[in-house]
Structures are given as C-alpha cells and as structure tokens.
C-alpha cells in the first residue's frame, strides 16, 4: 500500500468511527428534504416554522436577510417578514448558508475556518449570478451547489486537522491550488472526503456530483452543466479576494477550462457572457461577504 492510499484508508476509518463528525444541523435535514419537492407544493409558513425551531439559526438568518447580497435590504424584522419580502427561496438559501457556517469547527487553533466559509458564500453568490445571466436552470440550485461545493474542506478540518493544515501550508507556500496540494501531501482531496459526507447525508445526486467533480467536471456523468458552472464560479472566487486565504500564483483563462466547453453545451448564452463585468461585481460581493460573516459570527 502506498502512503497515499494509506492516508485515504485512515481517513475512511476515522470518518466512520467518528462521533463528533459534523452532523447536518437538526433543523436543516428536514428543510432540505422538504425543499426537494416541486416548488408548487412548497408552503412558506412551513419553512418559517421549521427555521424558528432553532433560535440562533433564526437570528443568523435575519442578519443575512438584511444584507444587500440578498436583494432587498429593507430592514426585515421577523423571519416571517423575511419569507414574505425575500421570497422563501432566498430564505432557504440563507438558512443553508447559516447551517454550513455552524458546521465549521470552532477551534481556530489550526486554521481559521472563516475564510473557507467566505469562499463558499462567495462561490454560492457567483454561481447564482452566472445561472441567472445565462439562463441556466434554477438559480437557487446553483446557489446551493456553490455553497456546498467544498463540503470536503469541512470534513478535512474536523477529521484530519493536522494533515489538512500541512496541505494548506504547502498550497500557500507553492502558490498552487489547494486540491493539488492535498493530493500531493495527503493522497486525496476535499472532493473525496466531501463525497463521503455527502453520501452519508444522502444529499441530492447533483450536489454529490458537484462536491466530487468541481475540479474535474469532465468526470461528472449526469449533472455536467451544474458541475461545470460551479467549477468556473470557484475559479473566479479563487482568483479574487474570496480565495482560500492565499494567492494562487497562476494565470487562468476561463475559456480554456474544461467546464467552459461543457457549460457551453448547456447554454448558448455563454459565448456572449461578460466575464469581466462579473469579475468586477465580485469586488462588491467581497466587502459585503466580509462584513456579513463578521456580523453573523457575533450572533
């Protein structure tokens, strides 16, 4: 057995036997399941009720509902008010975002988990924006995919904090992508560990594909368009200030990425897409994301 497969085996074992493994927050599991139904069958009040069961989650949701990132920032006072004024799709986006934040380990001794959360939120927003602009399916789905794409990083932070930190240091030192550093130093990436957790949580198949293949969308079989979209959104975030806390020393030509050609098969609007403008818009997300995360952390 090579060192790499040994580490992978060790990861699997640890993941299996671990009890403090991030569980999907109690409120979110039913919410997620509920949201998998067709939109016409969804009930606004039911979503509000589900959320109200967790006081701190509800408070965080209100913080986010009042951010310009979610459109109207007209000082929403109650969850119900948020549902009414933002539309409950946004509320569920927000709930999921807070849920992911709450899954991060609070021990900051190893690596500050906040940067990963900021990256995920940024990627969610950019994915949503791309989906809207190129008319690619449901923007809410793209948001969720962007938000959860790096679920494996959460697993790594919990299960192998030392090894993951070493990988991150290597990435930072060499200025290379995090998944390449993980592969080099641990023998697997957050795509592998994310997939394990995604399957254990029985996430929707398209989310599992995004989590598993967002760094190699050509490997995805069924939901290639969504996976490709998240690959591009992720790259944009990594080349901006919503990266993993370090700068990758490289040049990216989105049109040469495998995801670009794949996404183009699903959307004719892609060839006329203004990537430069989206990149500049990211500048304004960045400030909002930073201040929002700070505000929520205090909640």
């Amino acid at each position, binding site marked *: 057995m090579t060192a790499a497969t040994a580490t992978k085996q060790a990861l699997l074992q640890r993941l299996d036997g671990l009890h403090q493994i991030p569980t999907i927050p109690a409120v979110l599991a039913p919410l997620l399941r509920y949201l998998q139904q067709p939109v016409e069958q969804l009930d606004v009040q039911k979503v509000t009720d589900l959320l109200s069961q967790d006081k701190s989650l509800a408070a965080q949701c209100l913080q986010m509902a009042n951010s310009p990132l979610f459109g109207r920032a007209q000082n929403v006072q109650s969850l119900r008010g948020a549902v009414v004024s933002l539309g409950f799709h946004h509320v569920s986006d927000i709930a999921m975002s807070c849920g992911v934040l709450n899954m991060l380990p609070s021990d900051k001794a190893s690596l500050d988990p906040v940067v990963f959360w900021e990256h995920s939120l940024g990627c969610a927003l950019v994915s949503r924006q791309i989906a809207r602009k190129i008319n690619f399916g449901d923007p809410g789905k793209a948001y969720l995919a962007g938000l959860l794409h790096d679920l494996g990083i959460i697993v790594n932070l919990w299960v192998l904090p030392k090894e993951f930190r070493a990988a991150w240091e290597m990435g930072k030192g060499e200025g290379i992508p995090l998944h390449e550093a993980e592969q080099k130093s641990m023998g697997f990436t957050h795509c592998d560990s994310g997939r394990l957790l995604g399957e254990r949580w029985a996430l929707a198949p398209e989310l599992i594909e995004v989590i598993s293949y967002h760094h190699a969308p050509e490997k995805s079989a069924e939901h290639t368009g969504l996976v490709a979209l998240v690959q591009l959104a992720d790259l944009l975030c990594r080349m901006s200030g919503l990266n993993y806390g370090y700068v990758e020393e490289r040049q990216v030509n989105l049109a040469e990425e495998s995801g670009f050609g794949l996404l183009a098969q699903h959307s004719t609007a892609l060839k006329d897409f203004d990537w430069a403008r989206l990149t500049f818009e990211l500048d304004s997300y960045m400030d*909002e994301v930073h201040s929002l995360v700070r505000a929520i952390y205090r909640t």
Partner: protein
Amino acid sequence: MDGPPEPELVRIRDVIYQTAGIFHPDNKLRLLQDRCGRRMKELKVQTLREYSECLTIRPTRQAELIALLNEITIGETSFFRNQPQLDALRRIVIPKILEAKSNLPLRRLRIWSAGCSTGEEPYTLRMLMLEELNVQLKDWSTEILATDLNERSLAHAEEAVYGSYSTRNLTPSYRNKYFIPQGDKLQVNALARSNISFSRLNLSDDSRMTFMKSMDAIFCCNVLIYFDLASKRRVIQHFFNNLLPHGYLFLGHSESLFGVNDDFRLVHLPGATAYVKGERTPAGGKSL
C-alpha cells in the same frame, strides 16, 4: 452600503459601462453618485432621475456624457496605482514572457505605457524592473516607452518631481531607493529615470500607431474612457497588432473590452485581469 442601490444610479452606471467601458461595482456607486452630484449642481438639476434623462434623452446627452466622464476620470494618476496588477506582472507575466522569448537571441523587454499622464505609471514599471534586475532580468535589458497626448503632463513627467498625493502609496523602501527629497516633494532619481523615453503620441493617430512595434506588454490604464466605441476599437486593434504573440494588454481597474474587441482573450490573474492574444484555429474560428 446602506440599503439597495437607487435604480436611477444603476441606470447611469449601465450607461457609463456601455459607452465608456468603465464599470462601477455596487461598492463604488457612492463615488459615482458624488460625481453625478457635481454635474447636477452645475446644471441645477435636482434629482438623479432628471439627471439620468440628461444623459439619455435630452439632445445634449452626448456633451453631458463627456462632462460626466471628465468628472469620473479627472486625469488622476499615482505611483503603484494598482498593486495586484503589478504583483501579477512581476510574479506571473514576466516569467511567462521570458519563457516565450528564451530562444531568441535578443534579450530585451519592451513595455509601453500608453496614456502615461504625468509619468507615475511608467516610473513605477521601471522600478519594478529594477527590482528584478539581478533576479529574473539578469542579462536582460528593458525599455519603457511612455506616451501621452498632453504636453504639459509630459513636461511634468520629464521633470519627475511629485507631491505627497501621487506618492502616497510608496513603501519606505521604494522611497529610499528611487527618490531624492526636494523640499516637501520627491524627485525620481537618475537610476529610475534611465531607460524610459517619453514622447507625445495621440492614440488616435493611425499612422504613428503602426510604428509602436514589438511590444511585450502594453499598459493602457484609465485612458480608453475618453474614446467613443469606434475609436476605441481602432486603438485596441493597433495594440493587438503592436504586441508580440505572447504579449499582454493591461487596462485600468474595472475596465473591460467586452463588446469592443473579440481578438483579445480575457485572462484572470490574482486580483487582476489582463488581455492576451488568442490563437486562431486553422478553420478561422477560435479555439476554446
């Protein structure tokens, strides 16, 4: 930001982006609003809505647009204006250019600062090259061409004396290495003034533009805002022809070529964007 952006302001933002190619993200809308405010005072216009009509419907809209663009750009410049862009040049772009030229006998870099104003930009580039002199650029010579339309700006550039505003981003190390104090001002020293040539050039002068050959990198930052679409297209086409195959075009922060030119390819660098020459496939289409 407090509250959602005003729809009228967003409309003005879009007009500016479409006509001048300069984009104000949400966090810069305040700035845009200030600039509009100055014009509104001048015109004695009360509301943004009314002002937006001055830019879009009124017969004088063309003139008003130029007046607003002047407010937005006011010929401003400074040393180290766009740090991520400069970092990317040094860490990523220069190595790529050197690699592309590694088999050529002539070890020379040519960089053009087009629309250099009072000289802060080309001097900044020169200082970066000097920092790399004994590292990446060992055995290489560099040449910086700096051009502008404005003769007074060029005279200022040759004199190379600067006040506190345009030198505000200088680190102590650059200040000590490349400047001489002159009263309460700073003058660029002889070393940093070497290998730069300043000359007057109108970017719309087609015959002179064809002579700016064999560039490795062109910086044309915060200049194209002064051009209408047709002349912008011509300038960019010249840049395309003037660049070597591996060459780079850098624009100002938040400037884009979207809708202006299809030959250049957008590339992303950490915290910055640039344009490179795309390769054409044999069929004449573009490769992905």
